[in-house]
């Protein structure tokens, strides 16, 4: 029989993405704002400001529907790194009250109240103390809730009024949870949708079902949601005491001054940690990330994720934590920010539970191949450098070098929606070339008289090209050519303006006829691409 969940306090900043966006851009304060993120079917709203919500914009709405509800809506893309950086100020304020805080995601933090409540004279006193600390730091938007368990505390914070915390008495949490609709379970597997279709619109009805039946019908994910709905701890077993040798440390020498380097090292650590945990049949739900700089400053944060943490998610959180610290954007004053490079990153699993495993695809197929390739590419990054291993993300552009973006492995690529990208006006016609040279190969495009071919301002060539001379192809005779296609890039910008012309040139070398794309800019010709 499991014990009831421990009393937790939750500090929730509603619509934190919107608050951060408004802080970054003061002109948005008067406008309704919605922050969108990429979902399964395009952009969906993740957070909306109060005035946008009054017009009918809700979380989960598609972007077009939101814009239709509320004309004049300012739509911004979510920036999790900036939100995490800004949330660091809230974390520091609450850290002054208690050291044991746990960060769920930017906007929500929780901590167990047993120690601090006794120190500050009960739950009410603790709420007043936290409220005062937040008010001092000018963070009046935060709401506070206390209940049994983190799920109950988060819901209590949602129902709390501004300035007054909501305290659910001990043992009354299941009754408190019973009223809420199942959508608050916020499960990735569409469990709430299924439950409402089965006729269980409230958490109370869901909680009344026998737990064995829920496990049989919905699997381990459903059983976890059931425990949350009943107000119990999410994981039935007591957290397994962590073997002390499971700490992963990485010393960076020379110290990392850029977040990328430290985050890359942390990714390797996260992979190793999770491999070792998996070998023991465990997975961790809470991790303490410690970082230390050359000057001895330390930052330790406890991170928790609703579902089990994955190495990628953990690496992202480390990046958020270090980002705020290194760039000094925290805002609360310079004495807490890092003044030197990071020399040590340590990952310590805080709460580990037995792993229920991950269901692989039935035929092994795509997921297994993807995992193998991922491991090989990460190892290759260690051999050749993190920026060398890239994937191709096509984007629009005129020249072949502008039409692709090289996305380093491990970073998200946004694949363009739709099977065919629309054509880009001004793009070079013809098949895409297989070799693209950046910087261009220097050549001379000469006419029959031996003089370089120039293009006038009206786009007329001075002579027909007859020879292409350069290191790449030697002295080659031009057999066929096309163009010139004049290009005037950024004509409105006096500094960045570039004028040139494009030529398609087929040159005869001893081996074969080579077709290349030659760009003549400011009197200098260069091979931009070869159609290999």
């Amino acid at each position, binding site marked *: 029989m499991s014990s009831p969940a421990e009393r937790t306090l939750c500090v929730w900043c509603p619509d934190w993405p919107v608050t951060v966006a408004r802080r970054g851009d003061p002109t948005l304060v008067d406008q309704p704002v919605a922050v969108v993120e990429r979902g399964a079917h395009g952009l969906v709203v993740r957070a909306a400001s109060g005035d946008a919500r009054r017009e009918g914009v809700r979380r989960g709405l598609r972007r077009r529907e939101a814009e239709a509800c509320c004309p004049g809506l300012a739509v911004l893309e979510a920036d999790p790194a900036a939100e995490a950086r800004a949330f660091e100020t809230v974390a520091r304020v609450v850290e002054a009250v208690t050291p044991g805080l746990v960060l769920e995601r930017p906007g929500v933090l929780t901590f167990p109240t047993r120690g601090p409540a006794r120190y500050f004279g009960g739950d009410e006193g603790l709420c007043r103390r936290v409220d005062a600390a937040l008010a001092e730091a000018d963070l009046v938007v935060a709401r506070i809730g206390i209940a049994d368990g983190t799920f109950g505390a988060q819901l209590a914070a949602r129902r709390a009024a501004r300035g007054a915390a909501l305290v659910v008495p001990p043992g009354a949490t299941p009754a408190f949870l019973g009223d809420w609709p199942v959508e608050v379970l916020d499960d990735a597997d569409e469990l709430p949708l299924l439950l409402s279709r089965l006729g269980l619109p409230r958490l109370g009805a869901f909680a009344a079902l026998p737990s064995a039946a829920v496990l049989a019908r919905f699997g381990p994910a459903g059983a976890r949601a059931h425990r949350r709905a009943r107000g119990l701890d999410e994981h039935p077993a007591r957290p397994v005491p962590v073997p002390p040798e499971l700490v992963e440390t990485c010393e960076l020498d020379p110290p990392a001054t850029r977040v990328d380097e430290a985050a890359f090292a942390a990714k390797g650590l996260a992979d190793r940690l999770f491999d070792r945990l998996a070998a023991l049949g465990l997975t961790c739900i809470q991790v303490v990330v410690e970082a230390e700089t050359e000057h001895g400053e330390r930052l330790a944060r406890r991170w928790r994720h609703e579902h089990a943490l994955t190495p990628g998610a953990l690496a992202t959180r480390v990046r958020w934590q270090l980002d705020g610290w290194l760039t000094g954007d925290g805002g609360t004053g310079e004495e807490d920010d890092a003044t030197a490079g990071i020399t040590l990153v340590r990952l310590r699993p805080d709460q580990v539970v037995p792993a229920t495993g991950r269901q692989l695809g039935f035929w092994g197929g795509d997921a297994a191949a993807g995992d193998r390739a991922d491991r090989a590419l990460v190892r290759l990054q260690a051999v*050749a450098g993190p920026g060398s291993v890239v994937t191709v993300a096509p984007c629009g552009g005129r020249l072949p070098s502008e039409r692709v973006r090289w996305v380093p492995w491990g970073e998200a690529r946004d694949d363009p929606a739709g099977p065919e990208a629309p054509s880009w006006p001004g793009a070079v016609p013809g098949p895409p070339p297989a070799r693209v040279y950046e910087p261009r190969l220097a050549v001379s495009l000469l006419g029959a008289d031996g003089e370089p071919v120039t293009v006038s301002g009206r786009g007329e060539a001075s002579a*027909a090209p007859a020879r292409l001379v350069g290191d790449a192809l030697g002295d080659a005779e031009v057999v066929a050519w096309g163009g010139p296609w004049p290009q005037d890039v950024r004509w409105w910008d006096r500094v960045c303006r570039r004028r040139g012309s494009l030529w*398609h040139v087929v040159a005869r070398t001893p081996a074969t006829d080579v077709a290349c794309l030659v760009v003549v800019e400011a009197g200098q010709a260069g091979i931009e691409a070869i159609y290999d």
Partner: protein
Amino acid sequence: MALATLPSRDPAARARLVEVHGRTRPLVLARARTLTVPGPLRPLLPELVRGSVVVVDGAAGTGATTAALSLCAAATAAGEWAAVIDLDGTLGGEAGAAAGVALERFAVARRVPPDRWATAVAVLLDGVSVVMAEVPRHARAGDAHRLVARARERGTVLVPLAGPRNPWPATATTRVHVEGGPWPGLDTGSGLLADRTPTVRVVAGTRERVGVLAG
């Protein structure tokens, strides 16, 4: 069984022996060990056998890179991964898409230092199904032989991209010589570049097939 040392005067006995040899060979479904090559190279090179080495040979501008990319497309079309080692960072990403490669299962290692080339190819051979590697100048024969053995062991197709100045110093199951051809479509001052039809010679063991790739 050394069939060649049998007396050739008894054709009946020899025929019986060949039949028994055929029946006792371990049976592995050929389908599972090959990748179908899509695109214009298919009539000349219909399949890639896993674990083999297919050298694509051609000077710059002959169309060798595009031919090698269509071999990578063989892997991505089957749902598996392909990777390219691009020594000087000059591969055009869009050409990969035009050759039929699914870009979400395609990785490129750009600007690999020449002394790390063999290690990089070895790491990729463990993880993906087709590795296209540009051969650096003065590649060591020992490294190349080790890579051939590793490819055979892991069942990965290795496609070294060689040229007249950077030949592949080890053995190869198949050699694809791309010889280029004229470029249609462009005239003096007018017209647009159309797809070309290069001449390709595929040599596999003692068989040789010459053809022209359709545009």
